[in-house]
């Protein structure tokens, strides 16, 4: 079981081997291989439809893969429901459209999963929630409903909600793509702080500034394959790959 994994330190946080994923007849991921060490920060970029979101959604079974092996925190992701639940408890996800629960206050959004999944007492869950809301710099919004907050605030609540489960790994699926430009910075700042504290992170994003500041490794995907992976300095300065250079000129070119 996954609960022993924190003990079973060593070994990568995520290991993906020969991952295949089909949507009907379209081949979304083609024999993808990727290994992410504990404490490593990865940025995944690429044109739309390149399979980057699909790949990270496979890591906690929001999408079911059709071939290959995924091992998360030492546990293999297969049809064993116990394994899936165990992995989901340890992996936090931040979505493009926040997906906060609109019928609950910000505080309830942050405490429900620790209380009913981790069985924490309410007082403890609320204390933890308030600590993380402080960390994402919106402690004063705790009693509001998500609909009363701006997009940037909602996304920071979503980050706090994921952190309240005290995950060992965080997945970000285009966390700033649905935000107005003036709100992107406040979310990225929180993510940079998180990265600097040693959280293992895999971020699908087009924010190349964030990749420069926070990533250990940048991965470029196209057509369901990993085309290139390199440390950010190397990736931005001296990419050897034609498709990468073309993509970079499009996202950085103006």
């Amino acid at each position, binding site marked *: 079981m996954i609960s022993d994994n924190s003990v079973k330190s060593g070994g990568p946080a995520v290991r993906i081997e020969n991952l295949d994923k089909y949507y009907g007849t379209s081949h979304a991921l083609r024999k993808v291989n990727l290994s992410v060490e504990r404490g490593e920060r990865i940025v995944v970029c690429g044109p739309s439809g390149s399979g980057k979101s699909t790949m990270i959604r496979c890591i906690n079974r929001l999408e079911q893969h059709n071939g290959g092996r995924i091992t998360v925190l030492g546990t293999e992701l297969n049809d064993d429901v116990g394994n899936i639940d165990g992995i989901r408890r340890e992996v936090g996800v931040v979505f493009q459209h926040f*997906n906060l629960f609109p019928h609950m206050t910000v505080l309830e959004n942050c405490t429900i999963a620790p209380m009913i999944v981790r069985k924490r007492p309410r007082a403890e869950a609320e204390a933890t929630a308030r600590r993380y809301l402080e960390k994402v710099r919106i402690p004063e919004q705790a009693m509001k409903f998500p609909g009363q907050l701006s997009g940037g605030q909602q996304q920071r609540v979503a980050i706090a909600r994921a952190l309240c489960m005290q995950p060992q790994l965080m997945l970000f699926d285009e966390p700033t793509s649905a935000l107005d430009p003036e709100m992107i910075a406040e979310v990225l700042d929180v993510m940079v702080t998180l990265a600097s504290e040693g959280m293992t992170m895999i971020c699908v994003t087009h924010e190349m500034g964030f990749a420069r500041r926070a990533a250990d490794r940048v991965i470029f995907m196209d057509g369901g394959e990993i085309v290139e992976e390199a440390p950010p300095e190397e990736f931005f300065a001296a990419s050897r790959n034609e498709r990468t250079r073309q993509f970079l000129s499009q996202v950085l070119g103006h």
Partner: protein
Amino acid sequence: MEMVVLAPPAPGKLEDLRRRFFATPLQALLSLISFAIMVFLVWKLLNWAVFSAVFTTAGGPEACQATAGACWSVIAARWRIILFGLYPFEEQWRSALACVAVVVMTVLSCIPAFWTGRRIAIVWGAGTALYYVLMKGGVLGLAYVGEEAWGGLALTLFIFVTTCLIGFPLAICLALLRRSELPWISRTTGLIIDGVRSLPLISILFTFAIVLPFALPQWLAGDKLYRVILGSALFFSAYQAEIVRGGMQGVPNGQEEAAMALGMSYWQRISRILLPQAMRNALPATINQFVISFKETSLVVIVGFFEILASGNAAYGTGEWRFAYVEVYAFIAFIYFVFVFSLSRYGAFLERRMSVGER
């Protein structure tokens, strides 16, 4: 100095009246005619219902026939039949208490403070048990009264409340089964729902009351009343299941994904994330369904139960009060109105409460 800009002053009451109803000569004429018609109708109604009406039973039916007004004395003389049907006269206080028990139970379960599994179970358990013991008797020194003698308002309320208590959870189960990922489950459920919905309620009641006893062994068939309630609950659940499913379709996929990503189990996702939002979406249609079901309880008369409308027929149908049927129906209409109107007001309260935090 800062400039203070004021909105133009609102027109006064009289000016507003003039602009709305007397702007042109033709409009003024039409307004006056309509006003005169309204005054005439209200006067006629009041005259019939209050000024010329007979309220006491002192003069008997003859006093009523002498006046042009309403004969409310029929209610004073026959209200017990309307409210309690054929229930034994000396025991009718039990039927009245049973009505109170059902109403209290319903009101309590409408109060948000009672919306925890344990409290609602206690309220419903105690309410239905109290009703059953009071009505049926045979214990605690209460004389036994069989279901065939139950009637009037007490029966109407009992059929409505039990239909909802059984039908609502069943509807949620059907709605969840219908969205199952296994095609044979979702298709079978869909077939059942569509099957029940395509039958008239009367034929379902008839089948459960009359036909089912031939098909089932004696010990399983139970009393006719409970079979009828089961049939009516099944009918209710088929409609309500589609309402709940519609509500679920209005909840974005991302909600369930977010709940999964937090490690919640299937039942946690359903009960904490999906259903609360689905019920909010489905609320107006749900209240509508409750209102329809309340009024449809009158159909049980065809399988031989004297609910309030049938009891009303009996109340004026015997000789001397035969002419006063309008007053009896007006009284019954008023009772229906009180229940249905409170139901829809409660629906409006819930909608306001649930819209907290919505943009």
